[in-house]
């Protein structure tokens, strides 16, 4: 901790103590400054926890979008269960709670001068920085799949306009059409997400276009909650969904936008009525450009505080991190954001961060009154991030309808709680 940031923090503490009847003595010194890049699950949650843990902190949240559309529950929009407005949130309440919301994108992090340069040119100096940038698509990792191709064959892996593109294509697909999904190899954002999406699309097709089929071409040999998904598909959508793993030539290596054709490693051609290509991913640009990502394209962190292993004084949370066994999920990002926020506050006070505890519960809706989950409790130290032994795991396979129904209710409750914690 620099003497400057220590002075800033202590001055801030003196200011805050005024509310307890003590004199405020702030001789022109400001409170410590924390900048948070990215207003998603990791960043919005971190900003709120910073302010909650230390109201005198100057917290600035950098986010280019006026409204945030959550990836969780975007599959329900694609399936026609929800409208996009119900998964879109603004930053007004964060601003009202004293967080400065900078409606701009971070262009660069100048580590040596401890400041963030915004695309609009403004400089934001910081004493500590939390980066929650999310993912970028690896364009052209699948030959022919670039930004332009995503208009014809949407990825819909960042929610918003892409979500609606895919929904509209499904709405205009004729009955009897083939929906093809290309699913990526690990690691990628939201491991159960592709399979929840297939479930939601199957529920829509079963009701509206029952002669249609779904083909999943997968670049891996198995997937999250696989037996639970496959049980549900056999029960709810018999004969509709075919899944092809990498070992059976499921990996898509090339696409042709004009003919909506997906080509596998060994040259099989699959012509789709609607194609959803979920390509390989990496940490978003700002993290890669500012030395926070390693050669893998993802960001290594110290799990005791989510401080970057590559740059001191900067925390990285969310999908951009290497945080296995935690999945890249919104819930995990939020949990990591809390740890990074509380660690930042402690470190600004010159203290050791509190022992890091994280959690994740990923619910997936698979049909009406039918959801499944995977849960995990985690602890982080400087050496490693572990799942607490004998805890966590998936919903049991043999469960009855009532437990599946309860999980669908708890999924909705979770979504309401976590979005309210961020934006409410």
């Amino acid at each position, binding site marked *: 901790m620099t003497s400057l940031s220590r*002075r800033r923090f*202590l*001055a801030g*503490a*003196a200011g805050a*103590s005024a509310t307890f009847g*003590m004199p405020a*003595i702030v*001789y022109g010194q400001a409170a410590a400054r924390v900048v948070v890049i990215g207003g998603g699950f990791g960043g919005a949650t971190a900003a*709120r*926890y910073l302010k909650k*843990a230390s109201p005198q902190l100057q917290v600035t949240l950098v986010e280019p979008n006026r409204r945030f559309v959550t990836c969780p529950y975007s599959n329900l929009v694609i399936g026609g269960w929800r409208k996009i407005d119900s998964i879109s949130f603004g930053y007004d309440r964060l601003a009202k709670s004293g967080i400065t919301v900078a409606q701009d994108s971070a262009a660069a992090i100048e580590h040596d001068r401890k400041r963030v340069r915004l695309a609009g040119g403004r400089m934001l100096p910081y004493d500590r920085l939390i980066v929650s940038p999310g993912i970028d698509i690896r364009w052209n990792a699948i030959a022919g799949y670039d930004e332009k191709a995503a208009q014809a064959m949407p990825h819909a892996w960042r929610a918003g306009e892409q979500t609606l593109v895919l929904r509209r294509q499904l709405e205009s697909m004729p009955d009897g059409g083939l929906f093809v999904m290309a699913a990526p190899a690990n690691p990628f954002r939201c491991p159960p997400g592709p399979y929840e999406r297939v479930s939601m699309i199957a529920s829509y097709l079963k009701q509206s276009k029952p002669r249609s089929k779904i083909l999943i071409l997968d670049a891996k040999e198995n997937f999250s909650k696989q037996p639970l998904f496959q049980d549900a598909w056999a029960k709810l959508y018999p004969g509709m969904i075919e899944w092809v793993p990498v070992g059976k030539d499921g990996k898509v290596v090339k696409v042709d936008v004009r003919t909506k054709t997906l080509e596998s490693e060994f040259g099989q051609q699959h012509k789709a009525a609607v194609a959803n290509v979920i390509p390989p991913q990496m940490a978003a640009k700002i993290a890669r450009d500012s030395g926070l990502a390693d050669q893998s394209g993802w960001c290594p962190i110290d799990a005791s505080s989510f401080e970057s292993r590559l740059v001191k004084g900067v925390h990285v949370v969310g999908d951009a991190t290497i945080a296995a066994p935690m999945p890249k999920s919104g*819930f995990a990002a*939020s*949990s990591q954001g*809390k*740890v990074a926020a*509380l660690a930042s506050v*402690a470190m600004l*006070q010159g*203290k050791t961060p*509190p*022992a*890091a*505890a*994280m*959690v994740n*519960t990923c619910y997936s809706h698979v049909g009406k009154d039918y959801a499944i*989950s995977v*849960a*995990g*409790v*985690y602890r982080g130290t400087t050496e490693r991030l572990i799942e*607490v032994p*004998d*805890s*966590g*795991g998936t*919903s049991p396979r043999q469960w009855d309808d009532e*437990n599946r129904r*309860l*999980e669908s*209710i*708890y999924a*909705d*409750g*979770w979504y*309401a*709680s*976590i979005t*309210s*914690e961020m934006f*409410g």
Partner: protein
Amino acid sequence: MRICGFSLLIALIAAPAFAQSADVTILAATCSGCHGASADGSGGIPGLRGQQQAYLANQLKAFKAGSRPATVMNRLAKGYTDDEIAGLALHFSRLR
């Protein structure tokens, strides 16, 4: 120098409370993703705020032991020690 000393004094006065509550703050933060920022619950997920301490501790222990059926809480409660459960029960019982 006097100002620094004064500020430091305030920091020291404030420090013990923060240090004691730090662990339970971070543990309680693992509950709020589902039970809500104010622990009021949501849509079938029960509220924890202001519940009786003994009730909370007993339910969490029963989830952990598997003696109270649940969907996800059996799996999650196994991730916390008995001491942590006691700390969480006290924390949520005192939330107003």
